[in-house]
């Protein structure tokens, strides 16, 4: 029965035009960024390397390769994708309530737990498909347009250079981590959806939560950094970037295939998984007790 439920949920998701708006928006944004970097990429790289132009010969053309462009695209897009995820997941229960179909499906011989899990799984599959789509355009597309080279990743206080042969697995891992991060958003949006009977509320609530916690994280206020940030899921959602921070040996040379402080990535992954479980449990418990009056 669960598989049937899941197929039905996926069918409903992909029958709605709004689903394809997300895919279309991502494709357009990526193409625009690629176009902009193709035309004016050197200025973009200079922004990051300006302070070092007097000390080093900067290989601008080499830096501006497909891997670099993909990372730049992901930096820009993954901030906004939570909204696209919330649009679907936040509509899962409240949308049915608003449509008047919730009373029809809840009166069927399926348990409410099965319904929630099927909707959550469908949301997760949607997230994965969104990321695969992103990977095709952002990674494969950039590789085709800009070619491949070593990857340079700029952080606030340092830059990491990875050999070209040491890059693709990092993207693979980063996309998997991003899927985990976006699934957390989906679980939270689904949870809000259980409490509401119109879709707008859960979607707005999800986006607001993400924005507020991101701002708190960026403010760098010591009391927040000690109490809130270590547990805030928006902190850990950035973990995909951690796959592009390379570890180094005592002599300062990077170690191929390594990741700086891998324990932090494991911790972030576990925290996100914990949030997913928490949101799901709240959703299941609330939905099971809910009187369906819509």
């Amino acid at each position: 029965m669960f598989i049937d439920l899941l197929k039905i949920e996926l069918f409903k998701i992909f029958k709605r035009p709004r689903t394809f708006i997300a895919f279309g928006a991502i494709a357009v944004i990526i193409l625009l960024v690629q176009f902009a970097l193709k035309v004016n990429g050197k200025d973009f790289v200079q922004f990051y390397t300006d302070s070092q132009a007097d000390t080093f010969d900067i290989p601008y053309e080499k830096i501006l390769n497909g891997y670099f462009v993909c990372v730049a695209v992901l930096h820009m897009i993954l901030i906004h994708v939570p909204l696209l995820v919330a649009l679907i997941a936040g509509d899962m229960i409240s949308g049915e309530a608003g449509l008047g179909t919730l009373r029809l499906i809840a009166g069927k011989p399926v348990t409410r737990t099965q319904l929630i899990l099927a909707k959550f799984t469908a949301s997760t599959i949607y997230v994965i498909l969104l990321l695969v789509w992103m990977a095709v355009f952002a990674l494969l597309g950039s590789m085709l347009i800009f070619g491949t080279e070593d990857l340079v990743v700029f952080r606030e206080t340092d830059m990491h250079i990875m050999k070209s042969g040491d890059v693709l697995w990092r993207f693979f891992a980063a996309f998997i981590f991003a899927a985990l991060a976006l699934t957390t958003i989906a679980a939270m949006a689904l949870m809000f959806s259980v409490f509401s009977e119109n879709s707008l509320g859960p979607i707005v609530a999800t986006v607001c939560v993400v924005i507020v916690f991101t701002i708190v994280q960026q403010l760098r206020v010591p009391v927040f950094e000690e109490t809130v940030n270590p547990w805030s899921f928006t902190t850990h959602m950035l973990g995909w970037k951690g796959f592009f921070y390379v570890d180094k040996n005592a002599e300062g040379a990077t170690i191929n295939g390594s990741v700086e402080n891998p324990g932090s990535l494991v911790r972030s992954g576990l925290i996100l998984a914990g949030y997913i479980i928490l949101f799901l449990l709240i959703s299941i418990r609330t939905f099971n007790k809910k009187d369906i009056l819509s």
Partner: protein
Amino acid sequence: MSEVIRVKQLSKDFGDFRAVDALSFTVGQGQVYGFLGQNGAGKSTTIRMLLTLIEPTEGEIEIFGMNLRKHRREILRQTGAIIEKPDLYKYLTAKENLRIFSRLSGVKVTDKQIMDQLDLVGLTGRAESKVKTYSQGMKQRLGLAAALIHNPGLIILDEPTNGLDPQGIADMRNLILHLSRDLGKTLLVSSHLLSEMEMIADHMIIIHKGRKVVEGVVEELLNPEKAMVELVTMDMPGTLDILKQSDWSAFLKDSINGTLRLEMNKSSIPRLNRDLVEKGIDVQSLRPMNTLEDYFLSLTKA
């Protein structure tokens, strides 16, 4: 006759508000059971409890002889329902909707079965149209098709004629009778229109403010010889005691606004008056309501 639905002392509270109060009734196999009450009487709440959309505060529900809480899945596989205005997936076609609802009921249906069902409700020509293009009447009919697609034994229809034009109402009525008489289905049909109930139901319950007011065979309830009689005396408690200890207890219904109500033949009214007087009760008023409709309307005014 076996019981399909058995409801015992069913109650539902929403905070301090009691929407359904100790409601008990039974629906027999093959019956068209009318569930009548004004708007807000508790009909939809009761139906939602039957479909496990709402958790009862108290009471028990048995359907097909099984406890609803324990055997929910088996019961709902055999149950189809329209609740209030049937809203289906507007962005899907009629066929797609029916396929989804049949799957949710645990049944895989063929295209032919879907088309047969649409034929039954008169929507054959609109099978591939998206539901958002449907009129209210068409949605109502499609809702009925969705309730029937998995061939359930029990069909619960909440206000099935809402939004229908006179022809649509007549078609729905005929369909309900066909389901009951020709296909042997058991139907629970709720409405706030007594006239509709008179035409389709063979048994009926009237509820008011969540409580049962009257229940019985429609023919008997609508018997012109029978009436709901209102009794007012100078000693109401004493009168109630006397009635409860006598044969008149079988006709005693309830007390509303200081008035005792009995359901009885009009021809028995003088005898009741005589018995009360002989027992020392001063009868102030002994008034028959003319028809069930009068009684139903009086509830609205009360």
